C-alpha cells in the first residue's frame, strides 16, 4: 500500500502533464504538436526492432562510453585543478575558452582532425566533461580547512589524500555534475548525429523533422526522455550507495527533513 502511494506520488504530476498535453493538443490541432496518443502510435511504429539495432543501440553505446570517459577526465582534471593553483592558473583559461565554444561551431575542428563521420564520440566527451569538471573543481577546492590540516599533519600519502579526503568531500558535488553530464551526453549524442552520421536517434529525429512527420519527431523526443529518465535513475541508485555516509541519508535526517 505504502509502495503504491509512493509510486502514485512520483508519477502523478507526470501523468497530469501527459493528460493536459493530450487535451491541449487535441483542442489546438496544430500540425507540429501531436497528442500523446498519436505519439505513442508513432513510437510503436518507429522503435521497431530494426531501428533498435541500427539507431538506438549504437547511439546509446557511444553515449555511455562518451559519458564515462568524460566523467573520468572531469574528475581527474577537476581534482587536479581544484587542489593546484598552478594548474588552475595555467589550464583554467584554456578550459574556459574551449567550454564556451558552442558545440556546432566545433564541427570544423573535429572534421579536420578526427573526420566528420567519426566525430560523434569526441563531441560527446568534449561537451559532457564540463559539468563534472567544474563541479569537481568546486568540490575539491571546498575541502574543509580543518580536514586539510588533519590530512597534512598525519602525512597522508598522495593517494590517500586524493582518494580518501578530496574525492569524498567533493563527491556530492561530483554527482551533481555527473547527472548534468548524463543529460548533456544525450543531447550531444543527438547533436553529433545531425551531421556526418548515417544512423542514430539524432539522425532519425532530424529526418522525421524534415519530413514533417510530427508524431515521429515527438516519438524520438520521448525516447530521449525515457532514456534520460532510466539512466538518471540508475545513477541515483549509485549515488545513494556512494553517499550513504551522509547524514541526510540517515533515517533520522529524512524524518527531520520531511517535517516528521
Amino acid at each position: 500500500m505504502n509502495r503504491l502511494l509512493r509510486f502514485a506520488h512520483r508519477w502523478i504530476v507526470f501523468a497530469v502533464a501527459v493528460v493536459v498535453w493530450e487535451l491541449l493538443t487535441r483542442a489546438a490541432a496544430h500540425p507540429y504538436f501531436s497528442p500523446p496518443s498519436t505519439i505513442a502510435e508513432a513510437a510503436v511504429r518507429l522503435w521497431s526492432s530494426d531501428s533498435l539495432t541500427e539507431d538506438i543501440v549504437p547511439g546509446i553505446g557511444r553515449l555511455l562510453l562518451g559519458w564515462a570517459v568524460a566523467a573520468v577526465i572531469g574528475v581527474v582534471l577537476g581534482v587536479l585543478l581544484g587542489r593546484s593553483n598552478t594548474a588552475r592558473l595555467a589550464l583554467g583559461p584554456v578550459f574556459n575558452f574551449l567550454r564556451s565554444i558552442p558545440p556546432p561551431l566545433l564541427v570544423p575542428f573535429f572534421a579536420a582532425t578526427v573526420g566528420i563521420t567519426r566525430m560523434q564520440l569526441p563531441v560527446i566527451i568534449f561537451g559532457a566533461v564540463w559539468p563534472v569538471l567544474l563541479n569537481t573543481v568546486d568540490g575539491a577546492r571546498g575541502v574543509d580547512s580543518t580536514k586539510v590540516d588533519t590530512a597534512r599533519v598525519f602525512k597522508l600519502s598522495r593517494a590517500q589524500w586524493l582518494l580518501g579526503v578530496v574525492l569524498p568531500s567533493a563527491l556530492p558535488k561530483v554527482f551533481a555534475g555527473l547527472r548534468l553530464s548524463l543529460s548533456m551526453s544525450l543531447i550531444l549524442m543527438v547533436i553529433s548525429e545531425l551531421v556526418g552520421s548515417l544512423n542514430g536517434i539524432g539522425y532519425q529525429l532530424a529526418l522525421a523533422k524534415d519530413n514533417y512527420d510530427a508524431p515521429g519527431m515527438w516519438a524520438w523526443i520521448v525516447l530521449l526522455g525515457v532514456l534520460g529518465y532510466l539512466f538518471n535513475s540508475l545513477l541515483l541508485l549509485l549515488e545513494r550507495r556512494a553517499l550513504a555516509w551522509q547524514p541526510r541519508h540517515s533515517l533520522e535526517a529524512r524524518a527531520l527533513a520531511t517535517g516528521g
Partner: protein
Amino acid sequence: SLSGCGLLGGDDAGSTGTQNTGGAVEKSKIRVGVLPVVDVAPFYYALEQGYFAKEGLEVEPVVVASGKASIDGATGGDIDIAFASYPAPLLAQSTKTVDFKIVADALTAKQGHIVVVALPDSPLKKATDAPGKKIAITQRNTMTDLAPMSILKTEGVDYSQVQFVPMSFPDMIPAMQNHTVDGAVVVEPWVTTAMKKVGAVPVFDGASGPTAEMPMSGYVAVSKFTNANPKTIAAFQRALTKAQSEATDRSKIEPMFVKYAKVDQETAKLVTVATYSTSLEANRIQRVANLMQEFDVIKGKLDVSAMILSPATNK
C-alpha cells in the same frame, strides 16, 4: 515582446525603401525569409534597386538557416513570404501540415549547377561506382540526394546502396580529402570551390537526363496570407520578376553573390549561373513533386497546380 529590442534583433538591418505609394497593397511591410545562397541574388538585386519600394512594399529580408526554417517561420506567421528549395514546401503540403501557395519561381538548374564531385584519387569515378560509396549531401530528401538518385536509377545503378552522409557544404571538402566520404553532391558556388580548392572532378552532373532543367527553388506563402493579401503578393511578384529577368546580365548579379551569398570575388567570376525563371509554371514544378513521389518521399499524389499563384491568375 523581447524582439522589440533593437540591439537584440538588429531589426533595422537592411530594411530599405520608404516610397510608399499608399493604400495600394494590403500589407506594405513584409518579411521575406531567405538563405545566403545564389538563388536569391535577384531578390537582393530588386531590393537594392528599389523595385519593391516602387511597388509600395517595404521588404525586410530575414536570413534563415535552411529552407525548413523558412517554412517553419511562414507556418508560424512570422515570415510572410519564404524562399525555399522546392522539396521542403512540397513535402509540407503533402503531409497537409499547412497549405502553401507558390508565389514565384527562383532558380532552375542547368548543367554544372548541381554536380556530384570526387577527388581524383577517389574510388568514385563514374556513376556506376556509386553503390556502396559514401557521398556527402546536405540533408536527406533534398535535391542533393533526389537528383543523383534519379539519375542513377535511370542508368540502372542500384541507388539504394549509396550511403548518403549529411553535412554542410564547407565540411564536404575536407571530408573528401581525409576520405571520410568518397564524393559529394555540391551546388554552385561549391562546385567551383571544390574544383578550385582541392582539385575535385565531376563524377556526373545532377541536372542532366531526368533532372535536366529541374526547378530548384521558389518563394512560397501560406494560403491564409495570400488570400488576405493578393495585392501584396502581386506587387512582390512584379518586382521580383523584373529583377529575375535582368539577372541574365552577369555584371548585375555577380556583385549580389559576393555581397549576400558571401562568395569570394574570384569564385564568383567562375560560377555557373543557372537560369533565373521569370514565369511560374505548374507543370515544371510538378516534376519536382513527381520526383519526390518516385522516391517515396511524398506519399500519394500531389497536384502542384493547385499551389500555383501565378501573376496571371492573381491579377
